[in-house]
């Protein structure tokens, strides 16, 4: 389908056509009969209606470090330093990745979809990658390539090519790179056969080698967050109840052994550089979720700690900054989402974009800065 300014209108018309306001015979009578005989809500329903779990109301048992654990932790740090030195001596430079360009989607009302841009982390040198709309861009590990649903392109938008798409009703959506960049793991859905809805793996070169990794549950979709930096697991979100929001899950790289991490609703996320936590958005707020304990720790803007409406967080490649979206008041009761970045302690907030429309899911790569 080409870029369609008519999609919104067509969507409204389709919904109007599908909408069926017919009142079934006896429907109102049954309701009125129920109303006439129910003066009090059963206790279990009242309890259900007041039951809601928010991140701020969650309580986790504190993790108390014993002297033995402290010694073990110190030994681990020493061992890590030794390993780092050995790697460096072996001729392989050991340094964290450098922070490069940020890729993001800016909503284009004419196309009813996001158009991709890259920008330096200070907001300079904005570059539009493609004329058409694409969603959820992700940098490859080496910062040279970008994947969007069903496609791969170079970091400057050139070399765009579609990956082979599965035939039939299976639809592949947002994808993440494997650490070796050989495969992409994407969200897949098939309404005709829900057993095919889950994470799928495909070759990044041509889209071949299609393989299902997980099967989603409760009518939701499994949506990939990313591979652990060491490739030992993949994080994704999954609905654990039909009416519930997505939760944070890990699985082995082949999709086996899925397990929930913590007890938190997650809308987006990104692995920390050390692989020990995942930065997530939950109900308009940011948290790091410790993998081992599942404990969330709030990340707030130091100058406005109560501010909500933060989202789409991503770590900088060197792990020293956090990229996120923040709603900015543009007057007339309207807001728009812009990209910001800050230190993990919430200080040194820098505005990255100031576009005319909402700027959304972004990924911070190692592609060299433009000067």
């Amino acid at each position, binding site marked *: 389908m*080409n870029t369609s300014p008519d999609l919104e209108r067509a969507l409204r018309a389709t919904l109007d056509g599908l909408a069926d306001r017919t009142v079934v015979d006896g429907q109102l009578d049954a309701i009125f009969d129920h109303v006439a005989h129910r003066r009090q809500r059963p206790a279990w329903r009242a309890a259900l209606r007041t039951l809601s779990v928010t991140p701020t109301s969650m309580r986790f048992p504190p993790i108390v470090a014993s002297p033995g654990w402290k010694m073990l932790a110190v030994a681990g740090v020493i061992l890590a330093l030794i390993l780092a030195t050995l790697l460096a001596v072996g001729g392989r430079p050991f340094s964290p990745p450098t922070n490069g360009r940020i890729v993001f989607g800016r909503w284009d009302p004419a196309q009813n979809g996001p158009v991709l841009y890259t920008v330096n982390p200070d907001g300079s040198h904005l570059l539009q990658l493609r004329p058409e709309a694409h969603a959820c861009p992700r940098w490859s590990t080496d910062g040279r390539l970008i994947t969007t649903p069903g496609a791969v392109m170079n970091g400057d938008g050139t070399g765009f090519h579609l990956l082979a798409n599965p035939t039939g009703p299976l639809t592949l959506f947002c994808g993440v790179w494997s650490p070796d960049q050989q495969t992409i793991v994407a969200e897949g859905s098939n309404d005709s056969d829900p057993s095919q809805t889950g994470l799928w793996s495909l070759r990044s070169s041509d889209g071949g080698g299609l393989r299902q990794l997980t099967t989603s549950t409760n009518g939701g979709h499994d949506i990939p967050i990313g591979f652990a930096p060491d490739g030992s697991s993949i994080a994704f979100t999954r609905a654990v109840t039909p009416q519930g929001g997505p939760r944070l899950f890990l699985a082995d790289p082949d999709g086996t052994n899925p397990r929930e991490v913590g007890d938190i609703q997650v809308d987006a996320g990104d692995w920390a550089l050390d692989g020990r936590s995942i930065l997530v958005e939950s109900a308009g707020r940011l948290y790091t979720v410790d993998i081992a304990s599942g404990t969330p720790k709030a990340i707030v803007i130091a100058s406005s700690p109560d501010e909500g409406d933060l989202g789409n967080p991503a770590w900088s490649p060197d792990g020293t900054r956090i990229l996120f979206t923040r709603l900015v008041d543009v007057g007339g009761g309207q807001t728009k989402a812009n990209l910001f970045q800050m230190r993990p302690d919430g200080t040194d907030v820098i505005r990255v974009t100031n576009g005319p429309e909402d700027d959304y899911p972004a990924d911070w790569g190692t592609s060299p800065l433009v000067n």
Partner: protein
Amino acid sequence: MDRDLVVRARAGDRDAFSQLATASIGRLNAVARLIVRDDGRAEDAVHDALVDAWLDLRALREPDRFDAWLNRILVHACQDVARRAGRRVRLEIPLEPTHEPVSPDIQYSNALSDQIERGFRRLTIDQRTVIVLVYYLDLPLTDAAATLGVPVGTMKSRLNRSLTALRASLEADARIPSLGAEHLA
């Protein structure tokens, strides 16, 4: 929506509530059928929503917000019935075949509408809810966010994601020649 009816119903006037329910039930049915995609469960959701509304009406502080308040109860009821169903809710909507000759423009329009319907059906119940609130009920984002009880930013993210998911689904369909890709490519 008649404010006086809401005030009377809130005070316990069952006839007033009956008039409100009668005036609202068509819209509620339409919204529930779009979200749940199953007529029987949609009726259950509307039933639960109106009974809950009667039981909770005393807690409604702003009578002028009755419709928005009722929408919120209905959305929760839809999610409840989906949970009780315990499986993915979907329904094949039968399309009446047309035997009348149609113009290319109408063919294009029908093909696009069919694709949108298929794409809409593939969305999750949460994504369908977001789209119904914004594109069927025409709620401003702030009201849609309030209906779902989420921040406006989260609502924007969800709408963005729902539309891009729908779009990806349309693009996938357009690559299948049998679905009329020649009209849509």
